[in-house]
C-alpha cells in the first residue's frame, strides 16, 4: 500500500463568458501540478474547448470531464477528490458550489470573480473557502488572491 498517495483536485468551471476563467484555471492547474496534485477539469463543452485549444499538447490540462458526468460519478461513489475549486461569476456557479459541498468530501474552494463578485460572496451561506476579486478581463487581481490563499500548499 502506498504511504503517500497522490492528491487530486477537481476544477468545476462555470460559463466561460468571463475571460479570466480560462487563464486562472490554467494557472491553478500549473500550481497544483507543481505540488504533485492531479488536476481534473469539469465543465460544459465551451469551457473545456477553450482549455483544450489553449493547451493543445496538454502540458497542463489532463483529464477533462463533462460537468454532469463528473457529478454523476461523485454521486454514484465511483470517485471523489481531495480538493474542489468551483469557478463562480453568477448564481448558477453558487448552485454548483453548494452542490459540490454537499456531495463531495473534498475541501471546497469558491473562486469568485466578475463585475458583481461582492454580491456573489454575500450570497454564499455554506462552508467553503472563498477566493474573490473583481476580475473580468485582467486576471491579476484574482491571481494575487489565489497566491495569498495558496490552496495547493494546504
Amino acid at each position: 500500500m502506498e504511504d503517500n498517495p497522490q492528491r487530486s483536485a477537481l476544477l468545476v468551471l462555470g460559463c466561460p463568458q468571463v475571460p479570466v476563467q480560462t487563464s486562472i484555471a490554467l494557472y491553478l492547474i500549473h500550481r497544483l501540478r507543481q505540488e504533485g496534485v492531479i488536476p481534473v477539469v469539469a465543465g460544459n463543452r465551451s469551457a473545456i474547448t477553450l482549455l483544450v485549444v489553449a493547451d493543445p499538447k496538454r502540458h497542463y490540462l489532463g483529464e477533462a470531464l463533462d460537468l454532469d458526468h463528473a457529478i454523476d460519478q461523485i454521486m454514484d461513489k465511483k470517485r471523489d477528490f481531495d480538493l474542489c475549486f468551483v469557478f463562480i461569476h453568477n448564481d448558477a456557479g453558487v448552485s454548483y458550489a453548494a452542490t459540490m459541498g454537499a456531495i463531495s468530501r473534498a475541501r471546497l474552494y469558491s473562486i469568485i470573480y466578475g463585475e458583481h463578485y461582492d454580491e456573489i460572496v454575500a450570497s454564499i451561506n455554506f462552508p467553503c473557502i472563498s477566493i474573490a476579486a473583481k476580475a473580468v478581463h485582467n486576471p491579476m487581481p484574482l491571481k494575487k488572491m489565489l497566491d495569498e490563499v495558496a490552496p495547493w500548499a494546504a
Partner: protein
Amino acid sequence: MGCIESLPYEIVLSGSSFKECRDYIKKKCRESVEVQPGFRIFDTHIIGVPPITIGLDGDFVIFPYTKPCHGTFLLRVEDREEADRLRKKK
C-alpha cells in the same frame, strides 16, 4: 442533465436565481418537498443550494434546473409516478 432536455417540460421561470425558484414554489405550489443536492429526479442529479425545494401540484412536478451559462430555470413536468415518489418523501 441530458435526459431533462428530452422531457415534455414547460418553463415556468427562466434566467432566474435559485432563490427566486424556491420562493416561487413555496408561494405557488400546493405541496412541496425538500431534498439535498444530488437527489435523483427524472433520473438526473439535481443541482442547487440546500435544501432544494421541489413543488408538487397534482401530477405535476415543479423543480429547478441549473445550467452554467443560463442560470436556473424552473421547469414543470407532468409525471404521476415521479410526483407520487416525491410525495412519499414528505
